């Protein structure tokens, strides 16, 4: 899979968005069209393989009469015009397909057309159906029948059991050190053999095969096996996503050379072609030199839908460092005094200037260059906010094992509609909830009420030169504690505040992501692109960009002033369940139902890290504040910690008994808080978890990790709620922990 996928990915990233800024005039002051992300295609040389792919894509486009796209792609890829069928030009005049497509909302095949055509930009990137996206090949439309036909090879159905048992017997008798590694083969083999039987209409044999050997599989595959066991007819295989995943992606196994030789020799001796064929066709065996891994090492990394990540997949360099903070003129002293006096404290001179100044001057060697991706310029209000942030930061409580944070719980009462998502602003002044009844509600958690901007007529009357113009534009009559925003037509699954608190994003089951203004409390844009439920969305820490991911298995990167995505991150084999921006905004992490986490480079659109090890769909992600680490929580109740730079799993935190829906690092990264469906918040000693690491070169090179089971030592506290699943966590700027949920009483 990954081989094909890689090629495809390259094709994707050549997509440059050249949208005219006319259509979306909602006046985002962050907008800076000139600086919109543009990956320069010239920087990466086009390899012959890529060219092959590109040609295939062009063929496909032409076949679908997408002449404009053809033109653009050819220009971008720098391909000679004659590389295409000369007929392409003839149809170009008649086409104007792109324009037509945009209007074609009600068209018969709207769903596919929309995604295909409205993108005046690129090609296979916005592949019409889920199937094609993750099948990853633009060369032909991988019809299900084509995909499945690989199973048409016929063996004697009655012998399957014998083959499997034979192999099982062999693996059970090999030396202990090889047994654990070779046992990895069981699961993919089992599945493929079962599917072959089903495909070739040997229903009873398939059932018997399943009955006999399904019990041997690792328990973390239970969910998949349940789906598989329901599938007993060739007809069922049509449109079954799990199955397509299995066929189109090669299951990746990491096996030491010795073990592999052993297996190979055995299969050749026995003339066991059936099994050998499956291994050749459907499995990708990543062979390494050295000691075979132990059972626990393997178990730590396995569990994903498509096996482990290939070692090469995590070799790319990731700039995980933080961007340099912009220099901000510090507030005048009298302002400082005012603030102090308000709180009724004696004023003190703080040696703040130096510390802040020196901090921001250092440049992290692992940080990306400041302008690696264009970021919006700071507005005056942003600077003010930064100043507030620094002030608060000086009052921050230093947390540690002996100094645990206080917890405040925001309980949603009377939420009969069903609360599905929560977010708090960075300064903890607003809380927003997404509900199953399609509404988005915003509350002010400070005494300051929510107010709308005055109507246009009233705005004309105010004195625009006055100092307090920002105050004057607000309509006092609309002040209230909460506001409800209507617009979605399905449950709101993801919600995110912009860092400047002027906007709110929400993603919904209806397939749209909506941008709301918190000045007018109206919807500004509905971003359409995902045609299936969008499970999560998040603003970049610098604003302007946001990412969304959903059931269509792709994550999309958007800019608020573009109605088309800037990047499409495709590669997950199942729904994308959660999305998070790296603190430096250059990377995006996505967690998926395929039980993997991927890290994507915003600049290139490439997948730069694949983390496997979770045994259930991932529902929460959190980057450490220093950008070095990632924490992930899943339905299996475990939190896994990852070293982004080395691409390694570095910790496992066991304790929760149900899905972890929220993770958050404290502001200084000393403590990791996890909130779960099991009605608890747990605090973990993140400092200790990361400090104890010794990442030697060998581990980094091979990716073999030794995890110590020290969850109990790292667990600093378990705080139970009263029958309230914790669905959101947030550390205030002073390190007070806020949690939110709906009481189930």
């Amino acid at each position: 899979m990954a081989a094909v996928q890689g090629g495809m990915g390259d094709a994707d990233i050549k997509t440059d968005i050249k949208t005219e800024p006319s259509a979306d005039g909602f006046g985002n002051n962050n907008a800076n069209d000139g600086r919109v992300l543009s990956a320069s295609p010239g920087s990466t040389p086009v390899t012959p393989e890529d060219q092959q792919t590109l040609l295939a894509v062009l063929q496909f486009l032409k076949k679908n009469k997408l002449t404009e796209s053809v033109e653009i792609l050819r220009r971008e890829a720098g391909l000679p015009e004659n590389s295409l069928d000369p007929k392409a030009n003839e149809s170009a005049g008649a086409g104007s397909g792109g324009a037509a497509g945009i209007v074609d909302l009600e068209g018969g095949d709207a769903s596919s057309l929309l995604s295909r055509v409205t993108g005046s930009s690129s090609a296979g990137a916005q592949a019409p159906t889920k199937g094609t996206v993750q099948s990853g090949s633009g060369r032909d439309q991988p019809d299900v029948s084509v995909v499945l036909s690989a199973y048409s090879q016929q063996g004697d159905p009655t012998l399957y059991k014998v083959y499997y048992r034979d192999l099982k017997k062999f693996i059970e008798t090999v030396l202990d050190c090889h047994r654990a590694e070779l046992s990895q083969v069981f699961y993919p083999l089992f599945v493929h053999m079962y599917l072959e039987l089903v495909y070739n209409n040997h229903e009873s044999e398939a059932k018997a095969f399943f009955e006999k050997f399904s019990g041997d599989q690792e328990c973390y595959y239970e969910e998949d096996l349940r789906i598989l066991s329901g599938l007993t007819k060739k007809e069922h295989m049509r449109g079954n996503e799990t199955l397509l995943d299995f066929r189109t992606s090669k299951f990746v196994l990491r096996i030491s050379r010795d073990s592999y030789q052993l297996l190979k020799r055995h299969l050749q001796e026995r003339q066991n072609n059936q099994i050998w064929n499956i291994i050749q066709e459907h499995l990708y065996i990543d062979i390494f030199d050295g000691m075979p891994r132990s059972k626990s090492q393997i178990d730590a990394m396995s569990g994903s839908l498509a096996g482990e990540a290939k070692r090469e997949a995590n070799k790319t360099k990731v700039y995980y460092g933080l961007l340099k903070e912009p220099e901000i003129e510090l507030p005048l002293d009298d302002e400082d005094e005012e603030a102090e006096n308000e709180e009724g404290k004696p004023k003190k001179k703080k040696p703040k200037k130096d510390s802040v100044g020196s901090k921001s001057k250092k440049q992290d060697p692992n940080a990306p260059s400041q302008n690696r991706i264009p970021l919006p310029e700071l507005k005056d209000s942003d600077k003010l906010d930064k100043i507030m942030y620094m002030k608060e930061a000086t009052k921050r409580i230093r947390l540690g094992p002996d100094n645990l944070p206080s917890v405040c719980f925001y309980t949603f009462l009377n939420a009969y509609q069903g609360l599905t998502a929560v977010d708090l602003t960075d300064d903890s002044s607003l809380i927003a909830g997404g509900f199953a009844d399609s509404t988005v509600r915003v509350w002010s958690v400070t005494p300051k009420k929510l107010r709308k901007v005055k109507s246009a007529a009233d705005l004309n009357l105010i004195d625009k030169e006055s100092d307090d113009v920002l105050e004057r534009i607000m309509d006092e009559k609309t002040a209230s504690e909460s506001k409800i925003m209507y617009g979605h037509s399905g449950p709101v699954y993801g919600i995110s505040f912009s860092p400047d608190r002027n906007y709110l994003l929400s993603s919904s089951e209806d397939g749209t992501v909506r941008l709301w203004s918190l000045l007018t409390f109206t919807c500004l844009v509905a971003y359409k692109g995902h045609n299936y439920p969008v499970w999560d969305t998040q603003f970049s820490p610098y604003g302007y960009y946001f990412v969304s991911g959903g059931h269509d298995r792709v994550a999309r990167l958007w800019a608020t002033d573009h109605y088309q995505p800037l990047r499409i991150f495709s590669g997950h084999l199942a729904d994308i369940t959660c999305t998070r921006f790296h603190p430096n905004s250059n990377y995006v992490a996505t967690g998926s139902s395929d039980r993997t986490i991927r890290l994507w480079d915003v600049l290139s659109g490439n997948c730069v890290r694949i983390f496997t090890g979770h045994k259930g769909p991932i529902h929460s992600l959190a980057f450490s504040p220093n950008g070095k680490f990632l924490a992930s929580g899943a339905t299996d109740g475990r939190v896994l910690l990852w070293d982004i730079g080395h691409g390694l799993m570095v910790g496992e935190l066991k304790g929760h008994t149900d899905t972890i829906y929220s993770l958050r690092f404290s502001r200084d990264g000393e403590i990791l808080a996890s909130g779960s469906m099991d009605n608890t918040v747990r605090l973990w000693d993140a400092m200790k978890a990361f400090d104890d690491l010794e990442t030697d070169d060998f581990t980094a090179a091979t990716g073999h990790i030794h995890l110590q089971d020290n969850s109990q030592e790292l667990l600093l506290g378990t705080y139970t709620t009263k029958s309230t699943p914790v669905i959101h966590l947030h550390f205030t700027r002073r390190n007070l922990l806020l949690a939110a949920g709906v009481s189930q009483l």
Partner: protein
Amino acid sequence: MADREERRFAEVSRESVRLMAEGAGVELGDDVAALLAEDVCYRLREATQSSSQFMRHAKRRKLTVEDFNRALRWSNVEAICGYGAQDALPFRSVKEGELFFVEDRDVNLVELALATNIPKGCAETMVRVNVSYLDGKGNLEPQGTVPTAVQSLSDDLLKYYQQITRAILGEDPHLMKVALLDLQSNSKIAALLPYFVYVISGVKSVSHDLEQLNRLMHMVKSLVQNPYLYLGSYVRSLVSSVMYCILEPLAASINPLNDHWTLRDYAALLLSHIFWTHGDLVSGLYHQILLSLQKVLSDPVRPLCSHYGAVVGLHALGWKAVERVLFPHLPAYWANLQAVLDDYSVSNAQVKADGHKVYGAILVAVERLLKMKALSLSQSAEGQSGAHPGSVVGAVSYRVNSPGLSPPPEPLSEAALGIASHLQVGGAGCHWEEWTPVPLPAMYCELYSFFGDSLAVRFSTGTGFGTHSPCTPSQLSDSRKEPPGPASNLDTTRKMPQLTANLNISPRQDGSPRTDPPPPSLSGPGSVRSLPRASSMQRSRSSSSCSRQRSAGLSREVFPKARFTSPQTTPPAFSFLIGGRQMGQRCQGRRPFQTMFATTPPVSAIPPRTYAHKLPVIGRVGKPVRRWTCSHYSLHLPL
């Protein structure tokens, strides 16, 4: 994984498919139906699996119809409408056709449209914050404590709660009655139960106010009697509140004018009622209650009113509790009580009065113990002779109304009592295993040694009272002529409330005994101890060992009714008599307002077979006059 073999998917049978096809007017062949059925199953499974995704993302544990509909929409199938309600749908079967269907009641639109109680919209969604943990330590304000959680109740419930508590604890007795009545019958207050229990647990803070305590106890009663409430673990909390009223030296008891005795009696009745109706909700509750009562009783430091509470509590829990706890403890306790009673100093007057209350309570308890024990012995001797008419009714009423209360004292209902006492044994049997009961005669001797003639239960032999019990109206007049005539008996009933063991707690007048202090017993138990003891021993021995005729000398004139009997006419039978004592002018102690009824001797000289063949006769004769005897005895026997 091990249970994979057992796991089976729900399946739609081909018959169902064919039926549905017929419903749509299509005839299906067997093979088509089979194929369709299998495919339907598969599609259902697929839709279920994808619907669970929606559930996960909505952060719920419960899969809803909406989730399933969304999954159907994914697969381009029409959503199913009409099942979005949160309530479970009643799934019913028709026996004849093996058909199952979801009940779909008609909705009367006219009624709905004209209904005046238009439901208000649900409360506004809001966010409330509370500090759960400070510095990672301690739960400052546990999320959802009563005050905050009350806000999450619907407006109507909240209003109801406020009105009810205000009415019950307020001044207006009429309003209180209405409120209590509603609390007793309202079917929609389950959500408020914790709050009411919380209010009731406030007894500790109003121990100075008898009136409030009484009202809270009435509230308990109403809650306990509400058939729609499942008390669950709240029973424990209720019981502890009730026990508080029974046992604690309430602040209100300091003033002798305060009638805290009534409260204790009432609470004791309530306790037994809770135990008998809801005792099964909390395991080991009976044992715990007994233990705490015992603890109080054996603590000499506690004031006499606490001891009184313990005694009436035991009494209310039934004679077995008395036998188990009070009786073994009596010798030790007696010494203390005696000291109090013998102190005639003025300063001791109040304590002495209290002592007499305790004395009276103990007396009533042991008298019933004796009576019931004798009854149960006779019953067991008689064997489980089976179906008596009316026994079932008797047993039921016994269980429901007044467990531990003496049944109507007529031979007829003996069977009922027998069954009931077995129930009792069955219910609490496990607690009694390690304990060996004292035989009745020994018990009687011991008790007699304490109480002397005050003990109004008499055992005698050969009284023919068995023949009298199913008596005719004419005999009523006979009995009315007896010295303590019916009028005075009636009076006694009111005056000697210690004997009211009626556990029917609803009417206060019945349930709560009057608390006129018993007139001082002029015959100190110690003074008459020696002689009567001998005679009683003799009597008891005679009653238990053989049915020897009671000598005339032993027949006491304080039992005038015995005079009317003609012992010789009937075969000798074991009988005993229960009487209250009425302190009068006479110095020799108690003159019982007599009631006697006969039972069969535990060990009769007459061979059992004779007895066995006699029994049905009693039953048959008794039937027509049963009603009358009931009323007769209920007048005269204030048990």
